[in-house]
C-alpha cells in the first residue's frame, strides 16, 4: 500500500496516496479543477494553464525541521508567489490548496479568454458541441464579453484530412497535445505531431497513409474540442439527439466495452448507428478501442442481410414463415436418427451456443466450433489467467511471455496494455517495467518493446516452450516434456527472466498453428505455469489469443473445435445445422445430399446453397453475452430495432427444440443465462444482474459532466464478471502430456497469420475502412522471392487446399526464409495449419 498523506483543499482535509497530483486529489472530493491538457491517462504537461491554483506548504523551522504554527494553532503556511498548475503539482504532506480565491477565478477566466481569441464560433455546427469541455468551461469560468477584435483573429484551415479516418479542424485545436501524447506515450505510433510554433502550432501527420495507427479514433474522444473528428461521425449528428446503448466489440477476444450511439432518421424513420465509442472498463479496455471496433460496425446495415426465413422449393430458395421453416427443420432432425452435425461460429453469444449445443445434443448429434482453428480452451478453463489481472498494471515482478502471436494484429488492446506494462516509465524510471519476452518466428511490433526476443522456425513453437521450461527448471526435467535448450542464449536469457519473476503470464496465439499444434502448445505452456506455481492467482496464468470474440464462450458452452475441416466433420451427417458459420465460403464444401440448415446474418455461400435459411439478429439488435479470452463474461444490449421476422440465434434453436417437444423457449436471454449458470459450473455465479453491475472506477472519466470530455466513456451497462479457473475454484490441476505433432515439410511453407484489417464478412463491409483493407496478399522473404522470380507487388498464383488462388506478393525482410505468410480471412480458403505451397508468377501477357 502506498502511504497516504493529508492535504487541505479549500479548508477541507483529504487523505490521498502519496504521489497523487493536486488535480486528482481535488477530484476525489468532487472539486473539479478545470483542465484541458491534463488527462489522467497521460503524463501531465502543464501546457494549457487552465488548472492554476494557489498552493502553500507548511513552514518549517530551518534548524529543527519542526512545523511552525500561528497563534491560533494552525500551521503557518508558506504560499507560493505564483499560481501553480494543479495537474503537474504532486501533493506533499500538509499542503494547502485554494481553488476559489479571486486570483484563481481570474486566472481561469483569463485562460478561457485566451483560448477563445483563436477559437471559431462553430458550436452550432461542431460535432463536439454538447459534450465539449471548452463549451462547458467557458460557461462556468469564462467571461460573457469579448475584448478581442474579430478582425484580428487568425483564420486557418478547417478541413484537413489527417488520413482517411480522421479530420483536423485547425481553428478549433487548442494545442493541448492530448492527441500526440496519446500516440507517443500510450500507443507508440508517433505518426502525428506538432509542426510550426506559436499561434501557428498545428497538428500534422507524418505517416503514409496519413495517421497510420490502429488506435487513431481514440484521439477524437480525448480531444477536448471538436478539432479531431472521425470521417464516420463528422457532421453526422448532434450528441443530444443520440440514443446510448452499452455493447461489446465483436471483433477480437479482448472484448472491448463499447458505447453505441444511434439515431432515428427524420427522413425515413429508420434507426442507424451513428457512432461507436469506448465505454470505460479499466480491466478490459480502459477508455480505448481500436479502429476496427470503432469503424467496423457497418455490416449491420448492409443490404446483404437476410430478412425472412427461406426454404428450398424446386431448387430455389423462397421466403416462407417461421412456422413452416422450423416445422421442416424439426421434421428433418427427428427423422435423422442422430445423424446430425452442428457447426456454430465462435462469434455467436453464449446464449446462442448453449441453445445450439442443447438442440444438437438432445438429438444425439455432434457439435463443433467454427472455424475452430486453435486448441487449449479446456486448459484456459483450468489455468487461465487469474481473476482481476490487469495487463497494463503488471510490474517489475512479472514476466509476460508472448508466443506465436502478433498481438498488435490479433488483439490490439492487449497489445496496448502489454505495451504499458513493458514500457511505462514510473517515478522510479525503468524499475517498474514488466519483463516482456516475445517468442515468434519473425519480427513483429512486439519486438520493439520486448526485453527478450526468442526466434524459432515455424513449427518449433512447442519445442521452444519445452526448451524454455528446461532452462527454467535448470536442467532438471521436472517440467513435463522439457528438452535441453541447446545453448540457445536467447532462450537461456528469457528463462532467467522467467525464473527471476514472481509472476508469469503466458499469452499464446495462433500464428502458424494447426489445431493439434496449438493444443500441444497450450499444454506445454500450462505445464510450465503449473510447474512454476504461476497459476490460480492474479497476474499469473494462461491467455489464449483466440481468433474470435467468443471462442472462449464456445469452449465453455461445450462447443469445441472438431480439429478437422467442416467437410470432414460433417461427412456422414444427414442433417447439418450451421449457425454463424460459412464453411462453403471458406473453401470447405458440404455434401450435396445432406439436408443443410443455416442460421445467418447474410446471404453467405453456405446460406445460398442451404435447404433452409433462418435470418438471425446481429449483436447490436439483441441482448446476449460474450466471454473474453481472459474469461470475462460481458453483456451487450440491443441498440437497434430489428424486424420481427428476424430472431436471435438462441431463440431459433429453442423454437426448433420446442417444435420437436424436447425443450421450452426461454422468456429471454436472461433466462437462458440462468440455465447456463445451472449447467456450466464456471458460470454458476453469473447472472444478467451481476453482469450489469458497475462499480466506481478510477480514474473517473466521462459521465454527464464531460470533465475530461467524451460522454461515451461512462459505463452504465456493467463491468462483466470473470469466471474462476478450475484451480481458483480449489481443484488441483496437474501437467499433461504434450502430444507430438507432425511437421509439414517442403521448400516453401504457407503459414497462416492474422491481420487486423482482414476481409472478414463483418469488417470488409465497413466502407470507410476500404482504403486500409488490403487486397488478398501473401508475404514472402526476399531470398525466396528472388529464387522464384517474384518481385514486390507481383500477382502470383498459389495452390491452396487444392484450389488455385491469385494474390499479390509482398516481398519483405521480416518473413523468415522458406515461409510464405498467408493472412487469414482474406477471401481465400481456410488454412488449418502450415502447409507446403508452390508459387508461380502470373504472366498476364500470355493469359490475356
Amino acid at each position, binding site marked *: 500500500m502506498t502511504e497516504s498523506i493529508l492535504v487541505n483543499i479549500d479548508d477541507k482535509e483529504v487523505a490521498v496516496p502519496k504521489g497523487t497530483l493536486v488535480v486528482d486529489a481535488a477530484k476525489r472530493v468532487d472539486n473539479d479543477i478545470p483542465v484541458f491538457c491534463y488527462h489522467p491517462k497521460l503524463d*501531465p*504537461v*502543464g*501546457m*494549457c*494553464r*487552465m488548472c*492554476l491554483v494557489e498552493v502553500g506548504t507548511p513552514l518549517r523551522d530551518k534548524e529543527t525541521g519542526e512545523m511552525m504554527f500561528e497563534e491560533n494553532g494552525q500551521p503557518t503556511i508558506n504560499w507560493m*508567489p*505564483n*499560481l501553480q498548475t494543479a495537474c*503537474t503539482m504532486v501533493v506533499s504532506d500538509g499542503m494547502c490548496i485554494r481553488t476559489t480565491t479571486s486570483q484563481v477565478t481570474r*486566472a481561469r477566466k*483569463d*485562460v478561457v*479568454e*485566451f*483560448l477563445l*481569441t*483563436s477559437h471559431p464560433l462553430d458550436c452550432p455546427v461542431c460535432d463536439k458541441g454538447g459534450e465539449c469541455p471548452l463549451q462547458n468551461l467557458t460557461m462556468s469560468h469564462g467571461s460573457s464579453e469579448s*475584448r*478581442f*477584435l474579430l478582425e*484580428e483573429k*487568425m483564420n486557418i484551415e478547417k478541413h484537413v484530412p489527417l488520413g482517411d479516418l480522421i479530420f483536423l479542424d485547425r481553428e478549433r485545436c*487548442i*494545442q493541448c497535445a492530448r492527441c500526440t501524447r496519446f500516440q507517443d506515450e500510450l500507443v507508440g505510433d508517433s505518426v502525428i*505531431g*506538432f*509542426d*510550426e*510554433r*506559436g*499561434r*501557428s*502550432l498545428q497538428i500534422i501527420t507524418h505517416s503514409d497513409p496519413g495517421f497510420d495507427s490502429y488506435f487513431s479514433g481514440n484521439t477524437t474522444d480525448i480531444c477536448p474540442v471538436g478539432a479531431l473528428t472521425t470521417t464516420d461521425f463528422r457532421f453526422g449528428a448532434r450528441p443530444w439527439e443520440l440514443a446510448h446503448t452499452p455493447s461489446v466489440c465483436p471483433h477480437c477476444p479482448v472484448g472491448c466495452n463499447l458505447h453505441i450511439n444511434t439515431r432515428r432518421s427524420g427522413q425515413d424513420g429508420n434507426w442507424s448507428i451513428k457512432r461507436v465509442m469506448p465505454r470505460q472498463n479499466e480491466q478490459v479496455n480502459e477508455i480505448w478501442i481500436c479502429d476496427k471496433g470503432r469503424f467496423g460496425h457497418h455490416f449491420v446495415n448492409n443490404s446483404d442481410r437476410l430478412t425472412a426465413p427461406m426454404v428450398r422449393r424446386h431448387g430455389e430458395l423462397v421466403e416462407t414463415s417461421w412456422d413452416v421453416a422450423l416445422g421442416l427443420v424439426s421434421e428433418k432432425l427427428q427423422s435423422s436418427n442422430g445423424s446430425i452435425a452442428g457447426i456454430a461460429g465462435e462469434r455467436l453469444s453464449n446464449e446462442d451456443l448453449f441453445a445450439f449445443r442443447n438442440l444438437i445434443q438432445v438429438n444425439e448429434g455432434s457439435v463443433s466450433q467454427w472455424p475452430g482453428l486453435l486448441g487449449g480452451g479446456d486448459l484456459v478453463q483450468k489455468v487461465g489467467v487469474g481473476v482481476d489481472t490487469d495487463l497494463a498494471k503488471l510490474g517489475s515482478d512479472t514476466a509476460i511471455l508472448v508466443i506465436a502471436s502478433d498481438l498488435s494484429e490479433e488483439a490490439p488492446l492487449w497489445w496496448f496494455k502489454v505495451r504499458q506494462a513493458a514500457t511505462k*516509465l514510473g517515478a522510479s*524510471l525503468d524499475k517498474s517495467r514488466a519483463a516482456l519476452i516475445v517468442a515468434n518466428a519473425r519480427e513483429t511490433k512486439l519486438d520493439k518493446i520486448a526485453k527478450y526476443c526468442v526466434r524459432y522456425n515455424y513449427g518449433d513453437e512447442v519445442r521452444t516452450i519445452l526448451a524454455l521450461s528446461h532452462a527454467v527448471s535448470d536442467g532438471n526435467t521436472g517440467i513435463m516434456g522439457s528438452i535441453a535448450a541447446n545453448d540457445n542464449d536467447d532462450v537461456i536469457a528469457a528463462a532467467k527472466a522467467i525464473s527471476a519473476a514472481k509472476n508469469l503470464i503466458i499469452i499464446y496465439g495462433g500464428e502458424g498453428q494447426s489445431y493439434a499444434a496449438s493444443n500441444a502448445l497450450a499444454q506445454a505452456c500450462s505445464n510450465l505455469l503449473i510447474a512454476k506455481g504461476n497459476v490460480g492467482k492474479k497476474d499469473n496464468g494462461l491467455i489464449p489469443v483466440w481468433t474470435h470474440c467468443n471462442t472462449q464462450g464456445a469452449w465453455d458452452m461445450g462447443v469445441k473445435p472438431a480439429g478437422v475441416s467442416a467437410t470432414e466433420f460433417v461427412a456422414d451427417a444427414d442433417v447439418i445445422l450451421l449457425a454463424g458459420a460459412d464453411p462453403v465460403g471458406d473453401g470447405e464444401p458440404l455434401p450435396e445430399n445432406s439436408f443443410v440448415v443455416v442460421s445467418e446474418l447474410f446471404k453467405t455461400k453456405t446460406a445460398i446453397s442451404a435447404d433452409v435459411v433462418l435470418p438471425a439478429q446481429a449483436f447490436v439488435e439483441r441482448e446476449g453475452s460474450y466471454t473474453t479470452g481472459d474469461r470475462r463474461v460481458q453483456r451487450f444490449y440491443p441498440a437497434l430495432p430489428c424486424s420481427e421476422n428476424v430472431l436471435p440465434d438462441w431463440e431459433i434453436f429453442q423454437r426448433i427444440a420446442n417444435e420437436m417437444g424436447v425443450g421450452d423457449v426461454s422468456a429471454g436471454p436472461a433466462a437462458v443465462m440462468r440455465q447456463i449458470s445451472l449447467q456450466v459450473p464456471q458460470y454458476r455465479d453469473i447472472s444478467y444482474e451481476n453482469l450489469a453491475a458497475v462499480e466506481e472506477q478510477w480514474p473517473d472519466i466521462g459521465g454527464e459532466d464531460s470533465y475530461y470530455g467524451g460522454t461515451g466513456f461512462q459505463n452504465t451497462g456493467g463491468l462483466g464478471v470473470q469466471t474462476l479457473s478450475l484451480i481458483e475454484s480449489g481443484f488441483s490441476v496437474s501437467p499433461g502430456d504434450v502430444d507430438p505433432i507432425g511437421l509439414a515439410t517442403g521448400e516453401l511453407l504457407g503459414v497462416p497469420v492474422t491481420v487486423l484489417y482482414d476481409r472478414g464478412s463483418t469488417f470488409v463491409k465497413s466502407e470507410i475502412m476500404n482504403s486500409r483493407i488490403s487486397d488478398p496478399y501473401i508475404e514472402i522473404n526476399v531470398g525466396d522471392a528472388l529464387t522464384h522470380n517474384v518481385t514486390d507487388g507481383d500477382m502470383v498464383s498459389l495452390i491452396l487446399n487444392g484450389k488455385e488462388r491469385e494474390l499479390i506478393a509482398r516481398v519483405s525482410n521480416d518473413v523468415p526464409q522458406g515461409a510464405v505468410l498467408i493472412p487469414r480471412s482474406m477471401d481465400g480458403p481456410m488454412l488449418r495449419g502450415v502447409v507446403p505451397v508452390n508459387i508461380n508468377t502470373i504472366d498476364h501477357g500470355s493469359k490475356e
Partner: protein
Amino acid sequence: MTEYLLLRHRNRGEENIADLDTYLSLGGFEAYERVVTTMTPQEVIDIVKASGLRGRGGAGFPTGVKWSFLSDRFPRYVVANSDESEPGTFKDREIMEQNPFQFLEGLMICAYAAQAEVAYNYCRGEFWELTQVLESKVRQLNDRGLLGRRIFDTDYSLQINHHLGAGAYICGEESALLESIEGKLGQPRLKPPFPADRGLYQLPTVVNNTETLTNVPLIISRGPEWYKSIGTEKSCGPKIMCLSGHAKHPGNYETPLGITFRELIFDLAGGIRDDKALKAIMPSGASAPFLPASDEVLDTPLTYEDIPKIGSQLGSASIILLDETVDISWAALKTMKFFEHESCGKCTPCREGTYWMYHLLGRINSDKAEQADVDLLGEVAQQVVGKCLCPLGDFATSAVFSGIELFQQDFNLHIATAVNGKDDSNTK
C-alpha cells in the same frame, strides 16, 4: 583593462590562439590535463563552487552548485549552450570564432567534473559555418589524444558532438534545447524535473552557457581565490558586455562584473551616436524591462544583484541603447513582434497573449487605438505574467509593463493622434 581573460585573442601576443599549437604553447589544456590526471570530479566541482562563478546564459545560477546537483545515474551528458539567441547578444560567437580552445577546454573540464563521456555543443543554425570550423577543431583534439578513448592514459573517455538549431529563440532555453538535440520540436519541458536529474534522453545533464564554460580553465589554472578577486562579492569574474543600439562604438566589452552603465557606455564605448541624449536602456536584450537613462540607473553596477534593484535584469548582458529619437511604444512593438514570432506555442497565455499584445501594440503604433486599448494591453500582459510554462512568457511582458509605466507619454502621443484624426474626420 590590462588583460583579456575571455576574449584572449585580443591580448597582444596571443592573436593566433585559435590555432591549436599556439594555444598549447601558451599553456592551453594544462588545466584540463591536471584535472583529468590528478583530480577527482568532486575536487573540480568544489573549486568551481569556491570561485563563485555564475552562469552567463541569463539566470546567473552558481555553476559549481549546478554541477553538484547531478543525479546519481549514468551515463550523463554535458551540453554547451551556444544558441546565443537573445537579441543583442553576440559574445559566444566571438569566443568560439577567436578563442575556441579555451571554450572547448572549459566544456571538457565540465564533462570530466560531471563524469560525462559525451558532450554536445548546441549552436544556433546561423552558426553553421562556425560549427564546421569547431568540428575540425574537435577532430584536431581527437588526433592529439585530448579527446577520444582513455585520455592521458586514464580510464576517462570523452567525445564532443555538435548540433545545429533550426532558428528558434526558445531552443536557447535549456530544456527546449535538449528536446531539439533529441530531434523533437523545440519546446520547453516542465520543470521540475531539472536537466540535472532528467536531461538529455532523460539522463542527468549539465547545460552551461558558452561564456560560462570559457571561464572554467582560468579558474582551474589560477585558482578560485584569484577568480573571486575580480568583480564584486556576489558577481565574480570577468563578463563580456554586448553593447549595441545607439552606442558610438558598439561591440563586445570584456570588463569585470560591477562596472557601471556609465563607465561602460561613456568611458569605454564613447557615449551615444551623434551625441544624442540617451533615452532608455534594454539591459538584457528583449527579455528584461526598459530602464530610463537616469543618473541612478547609469551609476548602477552591472551585476546580478544590483540591476534587479532598479527593476530590470543583467541577463546575458546584451545591452541595447535607445536614444532620444526612439518612440518606446515602437520599441515595445518590435520587441513584441519578436516574442509573438518566437513563442513556441506550448502554453496558452504566451501563445495567445503575445499574439494579442502584438496586435494591440500594432493598433497603438498605427494611431488607431484608444486609451482603453492601452489599458487592455496592460491587462493582457497581467494575464500572461507569472502564468506561463517557461520564462519566455514573462519576458514578453517586460517591454509592455516598463514601457507603459516609464514612457507613458510615448503611448499618449499615439492616442492623441488617433483622437485628433477622429476629430478631423468629424469636422470634415
